[in-house]
């Protein structure tokens, strides 16, 4: 028994000694980069429109109607998609519940959610700007680049 304990102690002491502070820092950085990458990932279309619609307080059915109205029927969000996303947004504090009345929960976007939405809008604007540059005829500019 004593031999076994000594064996375990030696084994793990060696392992711990092998891990330097540099290794730990590198691992932390990797995790941070991964988190940032995930955060920067583009929002899906339903995510984007639900967050956009919650700039004003709305309940579930109203969100669906608002999105349909806003996009002229181009984007329709089904209840399954909507309620799964509302649960996830609430869990991640992107939206918050402000009232519950007659089986209807009303939500509004939070500052965290606004940041996510603004980042997405900036990304979309950059993409749109790229389109404008292509449409404006930037081939010469590309050929004469340094």
């Amino acid at each position, binding site marked *: 028994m004593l031999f076994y304990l000594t064996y375990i102690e030696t084994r793990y002491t060696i392992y711990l000694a092998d891990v330097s502070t540099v290794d730990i820092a590198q691992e932390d950085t990797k995790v941070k980069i991964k988190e940032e990458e995930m955060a920067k990932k583009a929002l899906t279309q339903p995510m984007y429109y639900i967050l956009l619609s919650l700039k004003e307080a709305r309940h579930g059915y109203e969100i669906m109607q608002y999105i349909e109205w806003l996009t002229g029927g181009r984007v*329709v*969000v*089904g*209840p*399954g*998609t909507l*309620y*799964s996303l509302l649960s996830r947004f609430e869990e991640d504090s992107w939206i918050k519940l402000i009232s519950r009345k007659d089986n209807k929960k009303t939500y509004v976007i939070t500052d965290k959610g606004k940041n996510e939405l603004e980042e997405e809008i900036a990304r979309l604007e950059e993409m749109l700007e790229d389109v404008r540059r292509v449409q404006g005829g930037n081939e010469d500019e590309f050929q004469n680049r340094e």
Partner: protein
Amino acid sequence: MNFKIESNYINITNYPSIEEHFQKMAREGWMIKSVIMGSLFIYEKIEPSDLEFSITPYEVETVFTRKSKEELEEFQTVSKSVGWNYVLKTFNLHIYCKEADQPAIDLQTDEEEKFKTLEFIGKKQLKSLYILTPIFLFFSWFILGGLFGGTGLLKRGSVQIISPVIPFGILLSIKNIFHMRKFLKENRENIKLGQDIEFSSSKFRLEKITLSLFLILIIPLALHYLYNIFVLRNKIMVIIAIPIIIGTIGGLLYRQFVKPAKKSLGYKKFGFVLMLASVSIVSLLVSQFSGLEVTKVARTYLEPSTQGLKILSFNDFDNEEEFGDLIKEASPLVPKAHTYISHSSGKGRIETEYSKGINRSIAKRLVKKHKMEGRDNVLPSYHQELEYSFEEGEYVSQLELIGLSKEEFIELKDKPDGEEKAEELVKNKAVFRADEKIWNSDEAYFLNYRRTKIVIRQGEEVFYLKGKDFSDPEIVEIAKASLGL
């Protein structure tokens, strides 16, 4: 018949094929009414209808959260307003239907979001499988090992009833892990490439067999417990049931009040740990209390009568019994069994274990297991004495009790494998044949060197006796008269 029961299987990896199945059944005049444990489908007779079904994942419950009734009602109301009527939910899958020709907005309108929801649910199922599968394997090994090894479990009905499902359960737990991992991995790629989710086309035969078998066996299992507790008044079963009842109550309270509460995740985690800790402590205390104190209460209120039972007690010898403990039990293989312990201050105790097997073969197996136990039990009790004797080269007189004489010890002590040979000798001397004719029985074996333990079989009946010198003719005659041999 206005209803129909079907063995089938639904989970997040195959539900679109179940939508089609429900449509087919509705056209044949059967409407799905209930799904039990995702495997037993109950239909109600209707006029054959052209219905369209839609099943959508929507997480209802996790370890720390649970959607309230109002939240689920809101989801159902909104789904109704876009054309879908709620039918039922099974775990995290919600089943809706509509007339096939009626327009409706799809419940899930985005493939990527649908996959995220499935992935969220699937990952949680995987986590549970990672935790529960090793626990399940451990208990399976324990139960199946016991079933083939000891006498106790041969008489334990719950183990006999549930054991047919265990091999299937082991295979299913392992298969589920691989199946879910494969489903999530493949579809993560599909979504990345902008393709649709690919659902499983498996027939899920193993799932159907295992879950149906489990649901079929759960009824005899419940009946077995109720019979043992209420008819046989088995104290052990009552004590076993206490932690189960406390655990169930604790779990229900946590599910009812903590999970749906609008509190932080930290608060809920704290609630979960607190619930587990308090349930464990209370169960432990109650079980301890039951073991020590309730026996007195049980003796007064729960103790079944010994009248008509084949038992041996101090009263059969000298009327000096102080008190006796009786436990009656029944199992499919041994439908009639009881253990009686007769206590007498200063004289120790006499034990009678009576078992009546369903046939002679079971009775013979019981005898065989008693013999095995007799051999196996002799060394643990005298291991220290044996080890000390061989290490110090000095004979310990207690070894005489297990049949190792001083002469035998002297002969073996200097041999390199002397201790092993002594152990083998002691084991061989522990179990030996008694005279069946004297006992009017088919088989009789002494189970220790001192002849204070004996197993006797007459037909399907097996008696295990302990506590008297069963080679003494006077004691044999008294025991035979008391046991009807």
